[in-house]
């Protein structure tokens, strides 16, 4: 059954081919967002910071000049904490020694890996649990019937309970409950971000449930579960992904805070920026730089994540799209 006559059709086909040549194939929403991201200087700066950070975390530990746990300063008698002697930067030790005579530069490099690990895993935990709860609640509230509202209310009251507690207090209680370890820090920091992800995804899904394409899909008889998974969810993910980037920054800071409070990795010889910050506290009067190095590193990394996250928010915002 042809609608258009053959000649007309050929003409249209030719035009379509011409148009296709100019236009890149299969430009999806994400590719479009990426293209806009590349034009944003803030995104470029953020991305460069992050790439450097990740590179250092991944390959840095293989190239450090000294072992991060090697207390050579004490052994060689250069570091005498009792006399307030902690030497600063030198040609051999670029950032000087710490209070146990270890090379700070090596510890910073090796610590990047731990810090990145904590940030990423904690964010993943928060994203997974939060998206699960928020996704179920959002689908139930937006598409479910009477039961849906009930499911939504139950889940979201639980989230509200989590949200009612100050985040650091919540993290501290979880960490204290589970006992100090690296895994504990990740779980504690992850749990803190669960309510944020859950509320974000739920709100986004409810908003999408009222859109025309959901109505159109319903009018074609598509099942509710299918609508929730293949129509509503993909459209609701953009703000969640942006939030994940921003959460990475706070996760690193919160992990540092937990380590600082002594709820982090009990093996304090393993370098991590938060632990290093905490360890430097007694020596602030003698060598304040020991605290400044990890603090600046944390700030710059968090800044990188935040810059990229904000730029992504702009790039993915449908209102700003042409």
């Amino acid at each position, binding site marked *: *059954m*042809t*609608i*258009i006559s053959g000649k007309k*059709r050929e003409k*249209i*086909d030719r*035009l*379509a*081919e011409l148009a*296709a040549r100019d*236009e890149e*194939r*299969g*430009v*999806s*929403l994400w590719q*479009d967002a990426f293209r806009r991201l590349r034009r944003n200087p803030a995104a470029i700066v953020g991305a460069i910071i992050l790439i450097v950070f990740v590179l250092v975390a991944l390959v840095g530990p293989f190239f450090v000049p000294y072992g991060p746990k090697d207390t050579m300063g004490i052994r060689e008698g250069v570091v005498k904490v009792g006399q307030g002697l902690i030497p600063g930067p030198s040609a051999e030790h670029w950032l000087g020694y710490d209070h146990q005579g270890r090379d700070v530069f090596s510890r910073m490099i090796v610590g990047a890996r731990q810090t990145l690990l904590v940030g990423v895993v904690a964010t993943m935990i928060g994203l997974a649990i939060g998206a699960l709860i928020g996704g179920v609640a959002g689908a139930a509230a937006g598409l479910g*019937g009477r039961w849906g509202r009930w499911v939504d209310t139950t889940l979201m009251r639980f989230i509200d309970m989590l949200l009612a507690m100050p985040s650091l207090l919540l993290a501290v209680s979880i960490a204290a409950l589970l006992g100090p370890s690296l895994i504990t820090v990740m779980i504690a920091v992850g749990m803190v971000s669960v309510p944020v992800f859950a509320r974000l995804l739920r709100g986004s899904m409810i908003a999408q449930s009222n*859109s*025309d*394409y959901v*109505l*159109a*899909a*319903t*009018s*074609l*008889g*598509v*099942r509710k579960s*299918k609508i929730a998974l*293949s*129509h509503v969810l*993909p*459209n609701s993910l953009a703000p969640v992904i942006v939030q994940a980037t921003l959460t990475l920054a706070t996760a690193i800071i919160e992990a540092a805070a937990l380590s600082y409070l002594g709820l982090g990795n009990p093996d304090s010889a393993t370098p991590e920026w938060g632990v290093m910050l905490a360890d430097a506290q007694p020596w602030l009067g003698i060598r304040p730089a020991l605290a400044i190095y990890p603090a600046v590193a944390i700030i710059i990394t968090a800044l990188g994540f935040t810059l990229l996250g904000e730029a992504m928010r702009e790039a993915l915002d*449908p209102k700003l799209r042409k």
Partner: protein
Amino acid sequence: MALLDVEELSVTFARRNQRTVRAVDGVSFSVDAGEVVGLVGESGCGKSVTSLAIMGLLPRQPGVQVGGKAVFDGTDLLQIDDRSRRDIRGRDIAMIFQDPLSSLNPVVPIGIQVTEVLTRHRGMKGQAAAKEAAQLLDRVGIPDPKRRLKEYPHQLSGGMRQRALIAMAVACQPRLLIADEPTTALDVTIQAQILELLKELVRDSGTALVMITHDLGVVAGMCDTINVLYGGRVVETARRRPLFRQPRHPYTVGLLSSVPRLDAGRGERLNPIPGSVRDLLPWPDGCAFAPRCARRVDACVGEPPELVLTHDGRSYRCVNPAPVPGLTPGEDVREVVPGQATPGSVPAQAVPNDPPAVPGLAAAPSEEETS
């Protein structure tokens, strides 16, 4: 028997602390197989709510009440359970919406959205579904369908998107297609193409089409039978030619005379209907159109006008319809169907022909004229 028989359909929206809105108030019309039926009226007259009610797409909330019947092929669509309703949607009845961009999922390629329907109702999967989807796109006149299947809605032009939506709607060869202002969001040139496509599909497959529109041009080009809606009621029903040649209800007359005409003189002004669709909130005892009507008489206020059937197969709800040249008023009336709760109302024949010189409306209008 008609394919779809809508009888006394009513939809009310009740909101807390607000008066109940009667969006649709006793709408009746029928659609035969292969017929194109138009629902015409200006914004707010209940066209879209009628279609959503038939499809069961109104929000399921305590405040939303749907009454009456919508019998499709022997089953009342308003009574069946959710499961069978979902089975009917898309397979037997499909709908085309107004805005093709927002009716397509922006993050899912067209192909997946088309195959979804095929999978759901025809059990097709993988290659077979993709092939059928390409054929569907081809059928609705989308060039290079294989490539288009991989593309996203924003890469298609407005006309293409509406074609894709139509492809999804006709994927299972439904017996009834409801098009809710399918051309409103499109350019005029594209509008003509889409209407042509719909006409072709209806002619080829024998699908019945309910065309919801405010565009009289669309109606004139497509519909066999036309129902004019006002204030949630059907005020006039007629075949296409008689309606355009000789509108009877003053609202239809007003609609037709407010359309710009090519053959009108240069300085000639349009004749808009004064006022706007009243708030649907209270259904006054009387004709909803009375406050704006040029042929208003005293009898318009009081009882809702009854349905008048004429000898030439038309019907209207008006106590003082536009006269037909060569006929005395009331001569062509075949039957007056008593409306609900209208005992002892004035028979249509007894209504004086001319409107009163001074619109001396007794009770109700004071509130309406201020609104």
